[in-house]
C-alpha cells in the first residue's frame, strides 16, 4: 500500500513517517510526504497513493481543496484527515468526499497507527475481494466455454469427418487420375505439343490441395478437442504423480517438434512426486515445451536452448518445475494476458490460445500455481508449483503398527 502524508509542519510529517515505518506497516519506498495541498496533489498524480493522510490548514492549497481535486480524479485512495479543535464545519463538508477517518490533533502514536492499521486491513480485504471477483469471472468464462464446447463438439466433428474423409479419398484416387492423364497424353493426337498448362498444374498441385484440406480438418478437430479438454478439466482424479516420469513422457511426445532445440533436463530424483494427475500433467508439460519451442523458432540453429529443472521449495512445501528458454520472450504488455482463454501470439494456424489457460485450470485445481518471468538470457522462464507428495527418505517408526 502506497501512502502520502501531507502536512505543512515538517517535524510532524517526519514523526508520522517514523511511526508508520516503526510498526512496519509499510516499506520506506512506499511512503512519500508533501508540505501543502499543491505539492500533495502533484505527488498524488505521479505516485498514485492508496492512502492519503492530510492536515487541513496549509499554505497555498488547503487539505479540503486538495481532497476535492483528488476526488475529481479518483475515488480510490483512502483518506485520513487530521483535524484541529475548530474544524467541525470543515469536517462536515468533507463527508461527501468519502473520508476514511478523522483524527483529532494532538493525537498519540497509538491512535494514529490504529487508524492506519484499520485502513490497511480494509484495503487488503478490498484487494482480495477484487482478486476473487476476477477469479470468479475467469472460472465462469472457462466453464461456459466448456459447456459450449461439449454442446457443439458433435456438430462440428460430424461434418469435419466427411470433409477429411473425402480429401483422403481423393488422395487415394490420385494415382488413378495420374494414370488417366498419362494415357490421354499418349493417345492424344497433339501429344507431342507437351502437356496442357492446366493439366500440368493439376499434376503438380492435386496432392498438395488435398493435403491442405486434410490439415484444415485436423486443425478444426484439434481445437474442438482442446475445448473439450477444458470442459473436462475436473473430471480427472487427483493422485500422486512422479514428476520424472511425467517429464520423460512429455519430452518423448514432443521430441519430433523440439528436434532443433538443445534440451537440457535436470531430472529430479526418482522419488520426487507431487499432487496432480499424470495424464493432465503430461499435457501441461507438453504445452510448456511446445510454447518454448515456438518461442525459439527465431533463434538461429544450434543457439536454441530449453532448460528444464525441478526444485523443492521447503517454504511452500512445493515442487517447482522450471521451463526456461532463450527465445524471443513475452512482450511486457502481454505478460498478464497469457493465461486468458483464446489469447495467442502465435499465427492463427499454430495455436488455439487454450494451452496455458487449460494448464492453469488444472494446476490450480491441484492446489498449485503457475507463473512466468523473463529469463536472464532474454527468453522466458515458466514455472509450475505443485504440492509436494514425495516420499521422504527418512525412516520413521509407525507407532500404530501392531
Amino acid at each position, binding site marked *: 500500500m502506497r501512502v502520502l502524508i501531507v502536512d505543512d509542519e515538517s517535524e510532524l510529517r517526519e514523526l508520522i513517517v517514523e511511526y508508520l515505518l516503526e510498526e512496519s506497516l509499510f516499506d520506506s519506498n512506499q511512503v512519500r510526504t508533501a508540505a501543502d495541498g499543491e505539492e500533495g496533489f502533484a505527488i498524488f498524480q505521479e505516485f498514485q497513493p492508496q492512502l492519503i493522510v492530510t492536515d487541513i490548514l496549509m499554505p497555498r492549497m488547503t487539505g479540503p481543496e486538495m481532497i476535492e481535486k483528488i476526488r475529481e480524479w479518483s475515488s480510490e485512495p483512502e483518506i485520513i484527515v487530521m483535524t484541529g479543535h475548530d474544524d467541525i464545519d470543515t469536517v462536515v463538508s468533507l463527508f461527501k468526499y468519502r473520508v476514511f477517518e478523522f483524527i483529532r490533533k494532538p493525537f498519540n502514536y497509538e491512535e494514529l497507527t490504529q487508524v492506519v492499521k484499520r485502513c490497511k486491513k480494509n484495503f487488503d480485504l478490498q484487494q482480495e475481494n477484487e482478486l476473487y471477483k476476477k477469479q470468479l469471472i475467469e472460472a465462469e468464462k472457462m466453464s461456459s466455454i466448456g459447456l459450449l464446447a*461439449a454442446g457443439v*463438439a*458433435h*456438430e462440428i*466433428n*460430424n*461434418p*469435419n*469427418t*466427411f*470433409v*477429411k*474423409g*473425402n480429401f*483422403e*479419398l481423393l488422395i*487415394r*484416387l490420385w494415382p488413378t487420375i495420374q494414370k488417366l492423364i498419362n494415357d490421354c497424353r499418349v493417345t492424344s493426337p497433339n501429344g507431342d505439343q507437351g502437356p496442357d498448362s492446366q493439366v500440368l498444374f493439376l499434376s503438380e498441385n492435386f496432392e498438395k490441395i488435398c493435403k491442405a484440406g486434410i490439415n484444415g*480438418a*485436423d486443425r478444426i*478437430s484439434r481445437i*474442438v*478437442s482442446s475445448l*473439450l479438454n477444458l470442459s*473436462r478439466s475436473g473430471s480427472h482424479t487427483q493422485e500422486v504423480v512422479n514428476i520424472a516420469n511425467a517429464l520423460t513422457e512429455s519430452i518423448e511426445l514432443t521430441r519430433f517438434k523440439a528436434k532443433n532445440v538443445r534440451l537440457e533436463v535436470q531430472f529430479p530424483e526418482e522419488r520426487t512426486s507431487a499432487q496432480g494427475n499424470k495424464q493432465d500433467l503430461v499435457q501441461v508439460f507438453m504445452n510448456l515445451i511446445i510454447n518454448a519451442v515456438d518461442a525459439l523458432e527465431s533463434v538461429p540453429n544450434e543457439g536454441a536452448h530449453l532448460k528444464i529443472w525441478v526444485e523443492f521449495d521447503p517454504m511452500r512445501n512445493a515442487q517447482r518445475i522450471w521451463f526456461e528458454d532463450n527465445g524471443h520472450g513475452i512482450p511486457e504488455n502481454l505478460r498478464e494476458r497469457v493465461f486468458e482463454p483464446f489469447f495467442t501470439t502465435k499465427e492463427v494456424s499454430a495455436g488455439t490460445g487454450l494451452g496455458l489457460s487449460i494448464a492453469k485450470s488444472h494446476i490450480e485445481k491441484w492446489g498449485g500455481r503457475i507463473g512466468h518471468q523473463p529469463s536472464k538470457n532474454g527468453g522466458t522462464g515458466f514455472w509450475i508449483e505443485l504440492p509436494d507428495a514425495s516420499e521422504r527418505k527418512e525412516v520413521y517408526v509407525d507407532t500404530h503398527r501392531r
Partner: protein
Amino acid sequence: MSILIVDDEKEILENLRRHFELEGIKVHIAGNGDEAIRIQREKLCPVVLTDIRMPGMSGSDLVLEIKKIHPTCIVFAMTGYGTLMGMVECLGNGAADYFFKPFEHTSEIVSQVKEALLRNQRWMKELKSLQIDKNQQNQ
C-alpha cells in the same frame, strides 16, 4: 463380403462407402437403428459400423439388437462427441472397438474392418467344421 454402416449423417455414409468400395468391400447403409435392423435381418452382414447418437434408437441399443440377430457379428462404434460418453455402455453391449470422429486416418478403419471380416470368415469356417464333426459323430 459386405458390411453395414449406420449413421444419421448421409455424407459420412457416402464417404465411408466410397472408401470401402475402393477396397472391393460391398457396403449397405442405414440412416437409423430401425433401418439397420431391417437390413441386417436380411443381409446378415458379418461386420457393422455404427454411430452412437442417432435419432430414435441409440447406437448402443442397436449393438444389442444386432447381437441378438447375429451373435458373431463384429460391431464397431463411432462417436463425434470426442469423449467416451456412451461408449462404455456400447462396449458392454458387445461392440468390439470404437473410433472417434473425425477419424485419424480413414485407412486405419478400413484395415480394421478388413481384419474383422477375415476373422469372421475364419470363425465361420471353424464353426462349419465343428458342425461337420458333430454330424459325423451323430451318424
